[in-house]
Every structure is written in C-alpha cells, then in structure tokens.
C-alpha cells in the first residue's frame, strides 16, 4: 500500500502546483520515460525476491542494444533475428551470473560487479565507443504510436503493462513463481521441501537477462539509436524502483506491481519538478528520502510479522 499512497500523494501535489501536470498526454509521457527502467526492474525484482542483487543490469542492456543494432545495420541480418541475437546475449549474461552464483556459491553482489565491468568493456570494444544509427523499422517498433481519445500512447507503454501483468500472474498463480518466494525466504527450508533451489536461481537470473534484452529493444525504439554509453546509472535506478515498490532486499517479500509504482514515483517527481521549474537537485534529494522511508517501512512490517 505504501508505494500507491506515495504515488497518489505526489500526483495530487503536482496537480495543485501545475495545471499542465494532470493531463492524459503528460501521463503517457511519464510512462514512456520510465518504460526502460520499469522493464529492467522486472528482472531486478525477481532477483531481489531470491535475496540476490544484480549490478550488471544497465551495461548488459547496452551490450544487447549494440548487438541488435550492429547485427542488423552492419552484418545485414534480418532485423528480427538481430533483435533475437541481442536478447540471446543479455539472457546469456543472466545465465552466466546465475551459473557463477550457484555453481561456485558466490555472492551475487560480487559476481554481478564483475560481469557489469565485462559487459561495459565488451560494449565499448565492439562499438569502438561509437553510436549506431539508421536502425530498421523493427528495431523502432515500440516507439510507434496510437491514439486513445485525445492522448497519444506508444506501443512500448502497452508492452510494459502487459509484461508486468504476465509476471504478476507468474509469481502469484504458478508453482515456479511461489518457489521463487520460498527460495528467497529461506533457501534451506525450500531445499528440504524438495524445491530445486539451484535451478530456481539459475532460471531467475537467466529470465532477468531476457528482460534486459526486451528493455534494450524498448530503449532503441525510444531513442532511435544504439548508444555505447547507455546504461550508466540503470543498476541503481532499478534497485531504487524495487525498494520504493516495497520489495524487501532481504528476499522473499514483495510485489512486482509495486516495482512499477516505484519506477513511476521517480518519473512523476522528475516530470513534476521540471513543470514547476524546480532544480533537479531536489529530485535527487526526494528520491533519497523516499528510499530511506521505504526501507524503514519494510523493517517495521517485518517486525510485526
């Protein structure tokens, strides 16, 4: 409930401050602006539910976008195949994270710190630090628009909402989804119950990598180029969205839809403060305060249980 209240309060506040805030078009815009982080944060949420963490998010996505762009533009692969190759690369990185964590029993923080650097370096080497433009239609698909009444939406926004609903269904209605919670709550108990904990973890990181690929596709649809310097701040932005959304960093407790609200809270503050003409420093300040509040709320609810 916390993230929903925070989001509604922010919306009420900015509506009173600026008459341009509470319009369908402005909300469509905020959704477009948070879509990339929101999809990355799906992967991050799944991982944090297992009591893990992934620092490689942004750079793995950037590597995926580079592969999608260069395979199509320079190698001349069919666009959809190039996109699939990009998603395969990011899923492969997810698999690598999961493999190292489960096989050698390593802490996720350290493993993903390593793969974060590897992914960044590979992107720089492969792209020679150059932006790739002139992408085919398929790469830009999610940037196409449609109208609902007066408001213009992108297909990308619809994709984000569909992905969240699918993952929500997976987590709350299927056995593997509940296994994921069990592994995050108490891996030892989960193992004794006969849940294949190692396989659950390996799959979680791989699926997260798949979502980073989708996020990369959304990113190039939005910016129309593949940028080697993308993904610099996304790891912390996704963790912020997950925490604001009420998912516990200790694993086993949280809701995927909260993460979407968390991403929206950050987007609403950025947009609203710009409309008010307030310096972006205050957005950073408020984000910091909200993160602390979210963690405090998490601890209090943990004690109650």
């Amino acid at each position, binding site marked *: 409930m916390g993230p929903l209240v925070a989001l509604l309060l922010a919306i009420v506040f900015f509506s009173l401050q*600026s008459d*341009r805030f509470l319009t369908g*078009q*402005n909300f469509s*815009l905020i959704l*477009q*602006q948070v879509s*990339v982080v929101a999809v990355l944060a799906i992967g991050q949420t799944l991982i944090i539910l297992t009591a893990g963490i992934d620092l490689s998010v942004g750079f793995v996505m950037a590597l995926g976008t580079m592969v999608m762009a260069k395979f199509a533009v320079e190698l001349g692969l069919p666009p959809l195949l190039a996109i699939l190759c990009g998603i395969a690369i990011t899923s492969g990185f997810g698999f690598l994270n999961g493999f190292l964590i489960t096989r050698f029993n390593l802490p996720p923080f350290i493993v993903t710190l390593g793969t974060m650097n590897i992914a960044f370096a590979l992107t*720089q080497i492969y792209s*020679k*630090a*150059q*932006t790739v433009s002139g992408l085919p239609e398929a790469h830009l698909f999610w940037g196409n628009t449609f109208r609902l009444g007066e408001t213009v939406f992108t297909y990308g926004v619809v994709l984000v909402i569909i992905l969240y609903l699918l993952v929500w269904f997976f987590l709350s209605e299927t056995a593997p989804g509940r296994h994921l919670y069990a592994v995050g709550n108490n891996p030892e108990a989960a193992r004794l119950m006969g849940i294949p904990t190692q396989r659950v973890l390996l799959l979680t990181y791989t699926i997260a990598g798949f979502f980073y690929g989708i996020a990369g596709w959304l*990113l190039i649809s*939005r*910016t*129309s*180029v593949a*940028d*080697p*310097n*993308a993904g*610099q*701040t996304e790891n912390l932005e996704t963790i912020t969205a997950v925490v604001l959304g009420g998912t516990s960093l200790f694993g086993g407790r949280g809701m995927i839809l909260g993460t979407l609200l968390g991403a929206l809270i950050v987007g609403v503050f*950025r*947009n609203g403060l*710009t*409309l008010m*003409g307030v*310096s*972006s*420093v205050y957005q950073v300040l408020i984000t910091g305060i909200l993160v602390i509040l979210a963690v405090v709320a998490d601890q209090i609810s943990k004690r109650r249980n």
Partner: protein
Amino acid sequence: MRRQVVLGMLAVGIVALGLVTAQNKTPYIGLITKTESNPFFVKMKEGAQKEAQKLGARFISAAGKTDGDNASQVAAIENMVAAGVNTILITPSDAKAIVPAIQKARAAGVQVIALDSPTDPPDAVDALFATNNYQAGVLIGQYAAAVMKGKKPIIATLDLFPGHPVGAQRHNGFLAGFGLKSFGPESNELARPAEVVCMADTYGDRAKGQTAMENCLQKNPNINLVYTINEPAAAGAYQALRAAGKEKNVIIVSIDGGCEGVRNVERGIIAATSQQYPLKMAAMGVQAGVKYARTGVKARGYVDTGVNLITKTPVPGVSSKDVKFGLENCWGQ
C-alpha cells in the same frame, strides 16, 4: 607504528624514484582522461599517441570509470609517477579533489598540465590547455540572437548536472551572448532570466536529453529556442521535438563539434554548434612534455586552444565556419 615507518619509507622511495626518473631525459608522457568511452577523450588519446610517436616519446594513458570518478584519476597519477613519467596530461573529473594528488606529483618533479578543464585553484597545475567554455557559449548565444532577431525568445536550456563548472560556463555564456541577464565566467551558478521558461539536466546523455525536452515541452509548448550542453543532448532534444511535430520552428544550438554533431548541423537538426579541438589540446600537451624532458623548461599559464562556430547558414556580425571545415576538424567518427 612499524607499519607507518615502512609506509613512510615506501613513500620516500617512490618520490626518490620519481626524482631519478624525472632527470632521465627520454620523454615519457602520461595522459589521464575522464572516461575511456567518450569520443571526445578517445580523440584526445589518439591525438596524443600520434604526436608522441612523431616526436619519439613514450606514452601511457589511463581514465576514470565515469565522469566525476576522482579516485581512479588519483590512482592513475600515483601509478604514472611510480612508472617514471616526466609529464602528466590530465582532464580533471573533480577540479578540487584532484589537487592534492597533483601537488604530490609536481613535488616529485613531474610536470602536470590540465587539458580541457581547469583545476580549482587553476594554478595547482603548471599549465592549462583548454577551450574557453564561456566563450563557446557566447558564440552560440550571439548566433541565436541574430537568427531570432525581433522574435520573442522562449528558451529551454538542457544542462549538464548540478554543480559542474563546464555546465555553468556554457549555460551562462550562451545567455550572455544572447544579450540576456547572466552571470560571468567565474560563476558556478546557472543564470535564469525570465526568457528561460524551462531548465532540465541531461548528464550529456541522449536518452536523458530526450526526457528533459519532453518535460520542457509539457511545461511550455511554445518554446522556440533550445540550448543544449552537448550534441548527444541536442539529438535527444530533436527526437522529442519531432515526436511533438515541432522540429520545424524550433532552433537548437549546441557545443562540442563532434563529427556526429557536425553532421547533425549539416542535416539541419542543429542550427549551430561551437567546435572544440581535443586533438590540438593533446598534441600541444605532448609537445610541452617533450620540451620539458629535453630542456627542463615547463609550460606555464593558460593557453586557449580556440573555438569556432560551425553552421550552414551564417549570420552577419557573427564569424563562423562552414560544415566542410567542421567535418575536416571534428573529433569522433
């Protein structure tokens, strides 16, 4: 206590090593940039490498991880002094925090030259080879004023991030060049006259530039002039303007003069940009390093490596170069 003695001896040893190697007359030059990935610094490194080869100097380079990563730069200075370079060329990520490390290097007999942006205080280094960022802003401001003659300016500024001197100098220079109320080159604060209806940060990043412009258009759909901190931010702004169907009647001006940026001037996406010359900065830095190694004479003070306004449509009263010149002298791909 014993550990401190050992560490002290080690430090003395390193300094002594530095002194010994500083008198060794083969020119050995180190370059430390802000990041490995920014094309501006890639070009700078290329320029320094080429010049070092030409003059028969040894050359090493290092960089921070991100813009603002001071710790990596400090480590790079220490390692290069230990490796025995005679001259360090550095683009400081954090103008203040880097100063103690530079002082240690200079005490060890190494010549330190800042490239592209100054240290704080400026005399913490032997010399500064840089573009005058304020002047770069003034040029595009003057250009925009001449183009908008008689029209009421409704301005959005897409800036860098809070507290960065280069961001402030370009922003304030642009406003001063346009003839609006602004601060001088020393100020680190962004001026905000009434004509500026929206200010947003881009971190010099294309996607964030797009987001910033989208939000500014929400705030005021009649914006007719956009100042951008660099050309990726300008490309992002154009993307947002085009999505809103406003790209035809909005003027975008920018700073940097990267090849992709100059091509965007050619395409009519950016009206004008102030071009800087990282190759020249790097080459001059290496020349100064070679001179110091061979003669013991250090470079001194501030050398302006110059900016040129690049545009397809020159205006009277503001001197500019054409796109052809821009492409011949640009950096990046």
